[in-house]
C-alpha cells in the first residue's frame, strides 16, 4: 500500500467502459464471465495501488457487460476498505429515477458512504426505444428525471407529476440516504451547455470525459459550468467541483510504450483506422509513453481547466489483457499519482474545495451534531405507514393519522 492517501484535495482513480474487446495479439475475446471477474480484480488492485476511485459505465448491449452497475459496485465495495465506487455514467434518461434513487441509496448504505455517481445521457441510440423512450427527448428526460431524483433523496414524501413518468402521490423512496445525506452527483457531458447549467444550478459536480476530443472543446463547457455555479450562488467559479477523465498507456521508456500499445490502438473500435496514434495522442489527452510524460501532460490539465477535484483514467479497454491493465495501475499508483498529488497540491488556492466525500457532506449538513437516522412508523396492517412514514416527522394529518 502506498502512503499517498494523506491529501484529500484530489481523488485519482479509474473509469471503465466495461467493453469486452478481442485482444488483437492473441485474437482471443474474453468471455463475459472472465471479464466480469477481471473487473473486480482491477478495482481491488486500484485500491491496493493507492488509487481512490473506481467508476464503471452502464450499457445494455454487447460487447459490454455492465448492465447492472450497483450490483458490481456493491460487490467491489464489500471487497475493499477505502476505495470509493462510482459510475461513468448512470443513464438518467432511460432509467426510472425512482429506481436510481432506491438502487444507489442501497449502494450508499452498503458501502458505508464510499460511493457517488455520475449522470449521463448515454451514447447508444437503441437504448432509448428498448426502454420505451424517445431519443429526441433525451435532454428533457435528463432534466425532468434528475429533478425528481434530487427530490426523492431529500424529501421523505414526494408528490410528483411530470411529462415522462407516471405520477407519484405520497411516495417515499427507501431506504432514505445514509445519514439522510444524498449521494454526491456529477453530471457528465461532452457537448451540451444545458447539462453544465444543470450541474451548476444544483451545485453538483461536472465531469468532462476528456478522452476523445481536444481540450478546447471541454474548456468551453467547464468554464461555462464554473461561471454558472457562481451565478447560482454556490461559491466562486474556482469553487465549482470539476472532474476529468483521461487516458494513458505507460512503459518504463516511451518507445516501449508506443510499441506495446500500437496494436491495441490500431484495432480499437473507437479509433482504429482513423488518425495515427501519433496524431491522436497529440490531439487528445491520450498519452502513450513514460510515466514522466503522463505526469507532465496531466499536471498541466489545471492550467486549462482550473484546479479540480477528480482525475479518472481509462486503462481497461481495447482488448488489453488483465496483466497489462494491472501493470498500468501499478504505474499510476507508484509513479504517476504520488507525483501528481504533490504537484497539484502546490499553489492550489486555499478556497478550492477538496474532493467530495460522504464524511464531508455529513459534516456540512450536521456540523458536530449526530446525523438523522430515520426509523419508520409501524406498518398499519396494509403494508404502508400512513401520512408520515418516519417517527421523527409530523404527519401532515396530525398525530391521529398515525394511530
Amino acid at each position: 500500500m502506498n502512503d499517498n492517501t494523506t491529501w484529500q484535495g484530489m481523488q485519482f482513480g479509474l473509469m471503465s467502459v466495461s467493453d469486452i474487446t478481442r485482444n488483437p495479439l492473441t485474437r482471443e475475446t474474453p468471455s463475459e464471465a472472465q471479464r466480469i471477474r477481471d473487473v473486480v480484480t482491477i478495482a481491488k488492485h486500484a485500491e491496493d495501488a493507492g488509487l481512490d476511485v473506481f467508476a464503471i459505465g452502464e450499457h445494455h448491449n454487447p460487447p459490454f457487460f455492465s448492465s447492472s452497475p450497483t450490483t458490481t459496485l456493491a460487490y467491489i465495495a464489500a471487497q475493499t476498505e477505502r476505495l470509493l465506487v462510482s459510475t461513468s455514467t448512470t443513464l438518467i434518461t432511460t432509467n426510472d429515477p425512482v429506481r436510481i434513487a432506491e438502487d444507489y441509496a442501497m449502494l450508499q448504505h452498503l458501502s458505508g458512504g464510499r460511493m457517488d455517481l455520475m449522470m449521463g445521457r448515454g451514447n447508444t441510440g437503441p437504448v432509448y426505444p428498448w426502454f420505451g423512450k424517445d431519443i429526441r427527448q433525451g435532454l428533457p428526460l435528463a432534466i425532468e428525471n434528475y429533478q425528481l431524483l434530487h427530490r426523492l433523496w431529500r424529501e421523505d414524501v414526494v408528490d410528483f407529476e411530470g411529462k415522462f413518468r407516471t405520477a407519484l402521490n405520497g411516495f417515499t423512496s427507501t431506504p432514505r440516504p445514509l445519514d439522510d445525506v444524498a449521494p454526491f452527483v456529477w453530471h457528465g457531458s461532452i457537448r451540451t451547455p444545458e447539462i453544465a447549467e444543470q450541474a451548476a444550478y444544483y451545485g453538483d459536480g461536472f465531469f468532462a470525459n476528456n478522452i476523445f476530443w481536444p481540450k478546447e472543446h471541454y474548456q468551453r463547457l467547464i468554464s461555462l459550468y464554473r461561471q454558472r455555479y457562481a451565478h447560482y450562488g454556490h461559491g466562486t467559479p474556482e469553487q465549482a467541483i470539476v472532474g476529468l477523465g483521461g487516458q494513458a498507456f505507460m512503459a518504463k521508456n516511451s518507445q516501449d510504450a508506443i510499441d506495446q500499445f500500437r496494436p491495441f490502438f490500431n484495432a480499437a473500435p473507437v479509433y482504429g483506422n482513423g488518425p495515427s496514434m501519433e496524431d491522436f495522442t497529440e490531439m487528445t489527452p491520450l498519452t502513450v509513453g513514460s510515466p514522466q510524460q503522463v505526469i507532465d501532460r496531466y499536471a498541466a490539465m489545471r492550467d486549462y481547466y482550473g484546479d479540480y477535484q477528480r482525475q479518472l483514467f481509462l486503462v481497461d479497454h481495447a482488448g488489453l489483457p488483465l496483466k497489462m491493465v494491472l501493470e498500468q495501475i501499478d504505474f499510476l499508483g507508484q509513479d504517476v499519482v504520488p507525483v501528481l498529488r504533490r504537484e497539484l497540491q502546490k499553489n492550489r488556492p486555499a478556497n478550492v474545495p477538496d474532493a467530495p466525500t460522504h464524511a464531508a457532506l455529513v459534516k456540512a449538513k450536521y456540523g458536530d451534531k449526530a446525523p438523522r437516522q430515520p426509523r419508520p412508523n409501524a406498518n398499519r396492517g396494509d403494508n404502508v405507514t400512513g401520512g408520515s412514514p418516519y417517527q421523527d416527522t409530523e404527519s401532515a394529518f396530525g398525530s391521529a393519522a398515525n394511530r
Partner: protein
Amino acid sequence: MSRRIAVVSAGLSDPSSTRMLADKLVQAVFEALDDRGVEREARVFELRDVAHDITNNLLTGFAPKALAEMNDYVAKADALIAVTPIFSTSYSGLFKSWIDVLDRDAIEGTPVLLGATAGTARHSLAIDYAMRPLFTHLHAEPISTGVFAASSDWGAEADSVAPLQKRIDRAAGELADRLSGSSVPQKTDPFAPEAYLAGGSSFEDLLTKLPSRG
C-alpha cells in the same frame, strides 16, 4: 461591422474549375457589397486540404485542428459560399462528408450561395434537387439563384444568352442584398445562457418548460 464570408470549395484537382467558380463568386460578392458600402472579409477553404481530417472526424467523432478551425469560421460567418463538383448526379462524397461533420446548428439561418460544376450543363439541376434540400434541412437560407458552371462555360462554347458572369452577378447581388439589409441574422453563441435557456435567465425556466431539443 465587416461581413464575414466563408467560402468552401470541394474541388479535387489543383487548379480546379470548382475553385475557379468559388473565386469568381466571392469576387462578385465583394464587388456587390462594395457597391452597397458594406465592409467585407472572406476566407476560402479547400476541402481537399482537410480531406483526411474529415474522414478522421467521421471515425473518431471530433475534428482535428485544421478542420475545427475551418468549421469554426464557417459557423461564425455571416454568409457561406458553397461550391461542389457534381459527381454521379449529386454533390461529391467529400462535400457531403464535410456537411456530416459540421455541427448540425452551425449554419442555421446563414445565407448560402450555392455553386456547382460539372462536365456538361445537363447536371445543372443538381443544385436544386440535391444541394438546396440539404441546406434547407440544416435550416440555412440558400438564396434563390444558384450558379452552375459546365466545362463549356469556361471556353468558346459558353452560353452567350445567359453567360456565366451574368448568373454570378445575379447571385452575388442577391447575397449582397441579404448581407446589407437591416434584417441580417445575428449569430448567437450556443454556449451563451440566453441562447440555451430559450430566452429565460435561470435553469428553473427549463424545469417549468422543458426544452424542445433533445
